């Protein structure tokens, strides 16, 4: 290797994916430089001070896609990552108190479904088996760098499900609107409509994940999401990576068809034969001439009109759901009717907020009191189908959104608004265009590789469905290391 390169590899972006990629490369004995534009690591998973003694990430509060192999290979458990709520039950909240609680135990779940439909309660175990079986058959494709599509009967099922919207798929199983509306929430991931092909596959993808040994589980890390960032940071540091904050990569330095390094905004240039990018819009770092016209077209995917928006409420006391016995340490979905998804989406496409919005929320402080002052709580909500380009502008929309979210939750938890001490609306992630079925059905290697030799994607956009996973980082690092050998 020539002395010309200051590093063996550069990782752009210091979020969880970037840190994981750096740790893997460092572990393999590479000299790694990680560039983070902000002044701290972790991105949306980093610790943030929300004021008044609240300290929680400005972003998601649950983990469901973190690769168990990343946890073990980077020794994250030894570095502080523990799960508090090991599995959150999915609860569809309803005004009439007939909440649907979906847990691992099929019998318990069926009895909560039976309130709405006996037939659906009987169907549930079959549906779950089919979903989990197909999900396991999809793991090679989604977990490995060169995994194959399933074959035989599972292939047939996949062919069909990949072409279906989640709504149509659930319709073919269940009759209860309450159940379908609850399940649909997870399908509308990544800017997909529940009417569009791909959304049913997104449900399968969720079911293919594994957290602390449980397939399809959703968990809360003890000490907040910052613990994950800290553990990854520690892993990267111990692997000997050079980690630098406040360094915004401006453009990539190319040498023929190869990547040669990164130009930093401050004027500095760093050289390395391998660059891994965890930033969302990789194309912004590339000089236009580097991409063929055809490739530019594929990179400039259809702009997404819909966004998922996080809302953080800090509460002076725990909310209560109208005296109905619901364990609060659950993941809640507020979408009583199926038509909410359609109408919210259609409104969002026109740049308006729907009259009713699909909302899901967790209260992480119930399982982990370290995030808030004693007795106080954080409610972290995710709202689907918010217009990305609101006609009235973001300032108006944020205000409107806050009112709607509080009103929607308060309808089921009276007195909530009196307990609120602060509301924060998080801006949506950068637009990457909605995910597509072909993207979900390509192998890991194809998702991380780019047209430019030595340049790899390793962030959320290289996952089949964007999520905190570390899997793309693991695959990208492995391919980069193998390619150099």
């Amino acid at each position, binding site marked *: 290797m020539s002395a010309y390169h200051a590093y063996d590899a550069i990782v752009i972006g210091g979020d969880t994916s970037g840190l994981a990629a750096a740790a893997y490369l460092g572990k393999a004995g590479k000299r790694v430089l990680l560039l983070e534009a902000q002044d701290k690591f972790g991105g949306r998973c980093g610790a943030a001070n929300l004021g008044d003694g609240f300290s929680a990430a400005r972003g998601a509060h649950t983990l469901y896609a973190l690769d168990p192999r990343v946890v073990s290979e980077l020794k994250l458990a030894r570095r502080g990552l523990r799960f508090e709520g090991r599995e959150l039950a999915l609860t569809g909240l309803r005004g009439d108190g007939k909440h649907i609680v979906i847990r691992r135990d099929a019998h318990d779940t069926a009895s909560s479904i039976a309130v709405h439909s006996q037939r659906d309660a009987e169907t549930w175990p079959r549906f779950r088996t089919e979903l989990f079986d197909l999900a396991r058959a999809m793991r090679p494709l989604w977990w490995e760098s060169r995994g194959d599509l399933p074959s035989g009967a599972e292939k047939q099922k996949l062919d069909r499900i990949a*072409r*279906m919207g989640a709504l*149509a798929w659930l319709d*073919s199983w269940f009759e209860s609107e309450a159940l379908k509306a609850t399940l649909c929430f997870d399908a509308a991931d990544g800017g997909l409509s529940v009417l569009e*092909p791909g959304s049913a596959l997104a449900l399968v993808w969720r079911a293919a994940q594994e957290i602390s040994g449980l397939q399809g589980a959703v968990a809360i890390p003890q000490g907040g999401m910052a613990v994950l960032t800290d553990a990854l940071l520690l892993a990267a540091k111990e692997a000997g990576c050079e980690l630098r904050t406040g360094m915004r990569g401006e453009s990539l330095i190319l040498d023929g068809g190869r990547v040669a390094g990164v130009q930093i905004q401050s004027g500095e240039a760093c050289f390395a034969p391998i660059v891994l990018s965890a930033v969302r819009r990789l194309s912004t770092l590339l000089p236009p001439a580097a991409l063929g016209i055809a490739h530019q*077209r594929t990179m400039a995917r259809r702009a997404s*009109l819909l966004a998922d928006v996080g809302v953080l409420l800090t509460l002076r006391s725990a909310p209560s759901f109208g005296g109905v016995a619901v364990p609060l340490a659950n993941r809640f979905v507020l979408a009583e009717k199926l038509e909410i998804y359609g109408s919210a989406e*259609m409104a969002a496409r026109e740049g308006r907020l729907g009259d009713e919005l699909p909302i899901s929320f967790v209260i992480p402080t119930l399982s982990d009191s370290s995030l808030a002052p004693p007795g106080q709580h954080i409610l972290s909500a995710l709202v689907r189908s918010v217009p990305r380009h609101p006609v009235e502008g973001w300032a108006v929309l944020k205000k409107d959104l806050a009112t709607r979210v509080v009103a929607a939750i308060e309808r089921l938890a009276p007195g909530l608004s009196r307990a609120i001490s602060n509301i924060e609306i998080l801006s949506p992630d950068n637009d990457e265009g909605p995910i597509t079925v072909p993207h979900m059905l390509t192998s890991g290697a194809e998702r991380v590789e780019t047209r430019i030799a030595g340049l790899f994607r390793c962030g959320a956009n290289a996952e089949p469905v964007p999520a905190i996973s570390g899997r793309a980082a693991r695959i990208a690092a492995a391919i980069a290391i193998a390619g150099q050998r």
Partner: protein
Amino acid sequence: MRYDAAIIGAGADGLAAAAMLARSGLKVVVLERNEKPGGRCITREFHPGFHASPFCDELPPIPSEIFWALDLARQGAVFVPSPVSTALWPDRAKRIVAGEERLYAQSTMLAATALTRAAADIAPPEKPFFWRRPPPTSDVWPGEAWATRSLRDLLAAELADSDAVALVMAAALEGRAAHPDLVGGALHLLARPGGSGLVAGGLQRLTDSLLAAAQTAGAEILCGLEVTDIRHRNGKITGLRLADGAEISARAIISTLDLKRAFLSLFAWSDLPRAVASRAGSFRMAAGTARLLFALDSLPDRPAFANADLFAGPIHIGPDSAQLGAAYAAWRAGTVAAQLPITLRFTSAIDTQSCPPGAAVMTATIGCIPLRLFDGSWTHEKRAALREKVLACIEHVLPGVAARVRACEVIVPPDIEEALGCTDGDLWGGEIASDQMLGFRPWFDCVAPRAPVGRLYLAGPSTTAGVLGTCASGIFAARVLAADLRAGRLK
């Protein structure tokens, strides 16, 4: 008396199948619920002196080999292709000449390829049946990309002019309920609602010539007889029971009904294999068509900016993709949108005999009209309100139409369901979606024409051939049935 084949439904597919089977010397009977054959291919007098085809003006194209094999031209069915289609806004017009538009040509070619492929599955490949070109050998079906894209994406990538995008979008979604932004919507361009052009003398001419072809060959056509049950013993079909209690014995049956009617109303639910019943039950319909037939005193004035041949082809009223999206949202919610997707045809311009001299017949095909409104069924008042809304939309781009209206008939999805017996009034036999099209129609392990019930053959709009070409699905079913009979598989 035992027939070799009984065909349910005397529409274009049923009659073509009957003609084909009778010609090969089989004893065939066609059973039609209505008093007259034809299904959607009929023409009637909707106002004294004014004739129109109530359910559609154009059909998907008839594969040319079927057209010539059945000798339809000599029997009087002459298709007049629309020379032009126009999108008309209050201030401008966009005109596309048929055959000039690459996307149209491409979609027609792809539809033909899809049909050829489907035919290749049932006929030996050395004897190509439709379009003498052999089926392409590549494993990926050429339209696969269309199934994974939205209509807007596809058009935006192919057409530079936004008016042209709006025009082609409106043409592909004519009379349908679909959103241009949803993935899979590009299939609507493949399975276009029209494309055949108008038949001189109205669609009744097509029925008449098919009827003549079938009867000449010796098929029996019985009208006014409704089939209520399919009789079967030991999983094999033995015949049909009619509404009047009579029974007809047949060795095989071709159903041209839509999937839901075929399985869920002709069989007792408990008689069907469980998988078949649940698949048929979860097959999605997407009814959204309303038709308005207008008798006009005279042709309206042509806007000065519009092309001279404006009235010779379909006119899409003020198409706009945002408006199509809003109309779809309204359809899902069970309401009628403020701005409706409307396509006008001045059929009397082609068919001068259809109305008194000087007068004109105008048909409006409207998409995104719900089967049931959120506030109840379609009443007389609601139909009148729809008529006024449509007229207001037309008046906006063609001033003076409202004053010329002598009479108007409003046809909404429940009327279509009642008249044609198609579930929910869906003229296309089920939603055009990526999991319900091509190799997945009617469902993935049921490849039409063979149904998963012995001796039953599927034709009609719920099969891929049924939405891609007129008569094609009937001919497919007839060929497979005849082959099975010859091979002794139906003993």
